[in-house]
Each structure stands twice: as structure tokens, then as C-alpha cells.
């Protein structure tokens, strides 16, 4: 190779390197956030290149809790997949249960009694509420306020007790069945739920005083990690992260399933798409969840809670179904392809945390390390959901 032969030299990359290094001190270093780090809530790993306190570039490294859910779905029966979907998103287990049931029922053409649909909606909304509550506490703990984290557990434990009463578990519920639910709700649950709604409305005022109005909290959240609307749409964000940018997109309104078309509720949206808006959207969503639960309890019809005719061992006709539902973190897509056997031929899940995380690298560039923590916390990431 002669000196003039530059075919093997990648000129462009050298040029790019120069551009990157311009305005950047030579002291920049790589910092490894995770996979074991108090702020990553699980086993997310983020490699950040830092220049002092500022992040130059960030790259999320995922897969530390990859458990092969899709492979398991394609090697076992439809009903056997129930435990998996509640472990995929452990904070929104009932919403996942609910969505999975609806998808398979659509594929196999199973009728669901009306009472069961109402029960599913009530339990899903309770789960959404408890998930948002935990997020509220965990986000504030990332910002250094420990006490709200303990306070939200009081409410979470009440919800856990309520749901424990009907579903028999505290966290990883497998409550829905094809054609209905596993167990009927009783008067004790309904009284408890009404009492909880009353209590929760009072507690919202307390949280507002303790958190929303706090000067330090506002300084840490306002204007931090603002996502422009166009970027959010390009990355296909969903859920509260998108709604904080001012896009009114909620599967419960746009493609209503269960009884969401019959109940009256609003979709809270923000304007700036920053961490504070994401906080406000989730905070207001909790109040909407209470409204939905209240209406469902008022209109709860009598009748069977499960379709007795539904087959226990499903073997749907060949075909495929695509179903989207709203989990606490955003839109979850399920794609199931059946080849007529009792085992799904292809099962694919697209989870909201996954899409939300993909914008993080872009969002972190040029931020302070403390803001990176604030942004990550405000996204409400569930790592097993990302890693499948």
C-alpha cells in the first residue's frame, strides 16, 4: 500500500472523531451506571461518557434479565403462559393478564361475560394505580427524598390487601382466565374498594403538598429531559412519556377494550414533555383510575364471572391476531400466530419501556449526571419488560 493510497483509511471516521473531540476536554471518562446501581431499579446498565459532571454520550446496555419469554410462549400451551406475562411487568401484572386474555379470546373467538369484563377493568385499574404509586415513591427516592417512598407503600399495601383478597397474590397475579376471571369479587372487596377511593382522594392532597409544591422537587424536575413532540413520535413513544409531550394518545380511548368505551374518564396531557410533566400526567392519571373504578363499581352487573363453555386447553384455528392494550407504562402490543395446534406458533410482545428507553441515549446527551438520574426515574422503566 502506497502512501497516496487512502482506500483503506476511513477518512470520515477520523473527521467525525475530530468533530466530537472539539470542545471536549481530554479528561472525559467512561462511567458505568449499573447493572447494579441504586438508581437503575433493576439491572439496566448505562455506559456514559462524562466530561466532569456532564454526559457527553450515553449508551444503554440491556439484556441483564433476559429470560426468553417469547421462546417459552412458543414452546408451551396458551394457558401455561399466564405466569410469564405477570412476571414480564411485575408492577402491571393484572393489566398484562387482562391484555393477554383479550388477545387470545380474540384469536379463539371466546365470549366473555359482562361481569367478568367489569371485574377485569376494576382490577386492572387498581394495578395501574399501585404501579403509579410505586413509581412516585421510587422517582422521589432517586431525587433523594426517602420519605414519600415509605408513604406510598401505605396505599400500596391497602391495594395489595384488596387484590390479595380476590386474586390470592400480592404482586405477580395470574387472575384472568380465558373467558372470565378466576374468582368473583364479593361485597367485602367492594366495600373495601369504596373506602380506599375515599381515603386515596384525601391522600392526593397530602402528596400534592408534600411533593408537587416542593421547591427543590420542582427545580429538579422542571425543564429536565424535555422531549420535543416530533422526537417522541419518531421514536414511537407511548404512555405517560408521550402524553407529557402533549399527544393525546391512550389505547383505552383510541382502541377501547373491556369497558373503557362506556366509562367516563379523561386523558391528562402535558405541554413540555419534561420530567415534571411526566410526573403530573401520572399523578392525574391516578385520579382518573379512581374515577374508572368508581363507575365500574356502580354499574357492576350480576351474572356469571366466567364463561363455562370456554375450553381449558385452547387450540385456536390457524390465523393471527394483533392486540394492543394500555399498561401503566404505555402501549403493549401482543402478536400471536396460531397454526391450529395447542402451542402458539409465534408470540411477540412489544413493551412500552423498551420503546421509551430507546430515546434515552438521545435525551441524556449534554445533561448533568444528576439529571440523568432524574430522567431515568421519570420514565418509569421496568427492566424485565425491556429485556423480555
Amino acid at each position, binding site marked *: 500500500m502506497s502512501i497516496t493510497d487512502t482506500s483503506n483509511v476511513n477518512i470520515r471516521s477520523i473527521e467525525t472523531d475530530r468533530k466530537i473531540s472539539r470542545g471536549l476536554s481530554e479528561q472525559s471518562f467512561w462511567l458505568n451506571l449499573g447493572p447494579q446501581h441504586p438508581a437503575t431499579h433493576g439491572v439496566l446498565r448505562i455506559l456514559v461518557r462524562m466530561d466532569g459532571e456532564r454526559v457527553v454520550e450515553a449508551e444503554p446496555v440491556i*439484556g441483564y434479565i433476559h429470560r*426468553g419469554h417469547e421462546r417459552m410462549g412458543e414452546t408451551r400451551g396458551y394457558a401455561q403462559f399466564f405466569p410469564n406475562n405477570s412476571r414480564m411487568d411485575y408492577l402491571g401484572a393484572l393489566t398484562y393478564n387482562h391484555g393477554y386474555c383479550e388477545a387470545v379470546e380474540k384469536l379463539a373467538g371466546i365470549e366473555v361475560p359482562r361481569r367478568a369484563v367489569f371485574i377485569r377493568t376494576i382490577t386492572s385499574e387498581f394495578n395501574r394505580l399501585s404501579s403509579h404509586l410505586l413509581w412516585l415513591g421510587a422517582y422521589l427516592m432517586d431525587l433523594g427524598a426517602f420519605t414519600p417512598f415509605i408513604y406510598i407503600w401505605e396505599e400500596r399495601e391497602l391495594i395489595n390487601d384488596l387484590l390479595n383478597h380476590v386474586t390470592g397474590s400480592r404482586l405477580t397475579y395470574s387472575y384472568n382466565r380465558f373467558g372470565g376471571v378466576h374468582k368473583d369479587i364479593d361485597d367485602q372487596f367492594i366495600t373495601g374498594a369504596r373506602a380506599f377511593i375515599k381515603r386515596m382522594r384525601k391522600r392526593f392532597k397530602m402528596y400534592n403538598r408534600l411533593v408537587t409544591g416542593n421547591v427543590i422537587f420542582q427545580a429538579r424536575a422542571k425543564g429536565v429531559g424535555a422531549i420535543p413532540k416530533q422526537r417522541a413520535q419518531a421514536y414511537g413513544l407511548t404512555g405517560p412519556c408521550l402524553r407529557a409531550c402533549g399527544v393525546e394518545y391512550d389505547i383505552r380511548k383510541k382502541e377501547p377494550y373491556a369497558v373503557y368505551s362506556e366509562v367516563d374518564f379523561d386523558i391528562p396531557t402535558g405541554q413540555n414533555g419534561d420530567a415534571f410533566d411526566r410526573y403530573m400526567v401520572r399523578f392525574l392519571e391516578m385520579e382518573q383510575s379512581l374515577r374508572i373504578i368508581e363507575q365500574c363499581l356502580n354499574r357492576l352487573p350480576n351474572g356469571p364471572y366466567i364463561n363455562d363453555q370456554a375450553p381449558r386447553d385452547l387450540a385456536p384455528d390457524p390465523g393471527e391476531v394483533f392486540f394492543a392494550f394500555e399498561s401503566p407504562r404505555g402501549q403493549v402490543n401482543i402478536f400471536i400466530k396460531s397454526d391450529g395446534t395447542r402451542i402458539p*406458533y409465534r408470540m411477540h410482545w412489544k413493551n412500552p419501556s423498551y420503546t421509551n428507553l430507546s430515546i434515552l441515549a438521545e435525551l441524556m446527551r449534554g445533561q448533568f449526571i444528576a439529571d440523568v438520574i432524574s430522567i431515568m426515574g421519570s420514565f418509569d422503566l421496568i427492566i424485565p419488560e425491556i429485556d423480555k
Partner: protein
Amino acid sequence: MISSSALNELSKALGAAEVHATDYNRTGSHLDVTVAGDGLRAAAQTLQGRGFFLEDLTAVDHRTHREVVYRFNLYQGPCRVTIRAKADEADAVDTISDLYPLANWMERECHEFLGVTFTGHPDPRRLLLPEDSDFHPLRKDFVVPQEALAPEYHQD
């Protein structure tokens, strides 16, 4: 709900050989488009121009060949467009990660799980599995090598 005239207009604009409306209530999709070769990028560009966002990207292993399935949707209302692209003999499909940034990760995942190569992808590394993995677990011909998975982290 999107009107049927708008759907017709959209399917004309996509201009692929195989476009047909599907029953939304059964399959969850309004339009089903099968594209070949360059058609994928053309269709994706058309949809991007109309404000569609990428909702889902995955592949199905048909044993003989792999088929990549894209879903696009509108934020304004449900208008789901399914685009199917058959991978060629070398298991390759054009990338759309330059059009939709989200596709970057989803194509990496798809490549990792099903072995579909996305031509022109800027960063075709492993995403979820360890970086030195050499298998594609969602392929129908993948057999879990039992002995190879014995624990290897034992301390002496």
C-alpha cells in the same frame, strides 16, 4: 375509526402489489400489505410522510424463509397498517432505522432472535443476549444445547 375511503386512498398511495383490507375486529389490523425488494422502504417513506409511527417490528420464522412484519399506526386514531416483507435467500431485508429511530433497536432484536440481517443497519450488534452469543433462539430449528449451558461461573 378511520373511514373506508381514507383506507382506499392510503392503499392506493402505498402502491404495492398485494394490498388488502383486513377485518380489524379479528386481526387488529386495517390494512395488510405485502412488499418485496425496494417496496419496503418506499412504503415506509410513504407512511412516514403521512405521520404514521412505527408500532411494532418482528419476524416470523416460516421454516423455509423468514418474514419481517411491521406495524404502523396513527396517533390520531386507530389506522393500523401491517407490512410484510419476505427476507431473501440470505435472510436479508432493507433497514428502515434511518427513517424510524426506534427501528434501530427492534431490528437488532429481530436479528438477534431470528437471524434476519438488515442491510444498512448502522450497529448490528447483539442487544439482549451476551455479546458473544452465536445462536438465534426464536428460530424453529434452534435446539437448546443442554451440555453447553452447564454453569461456567464456578469458582475454583
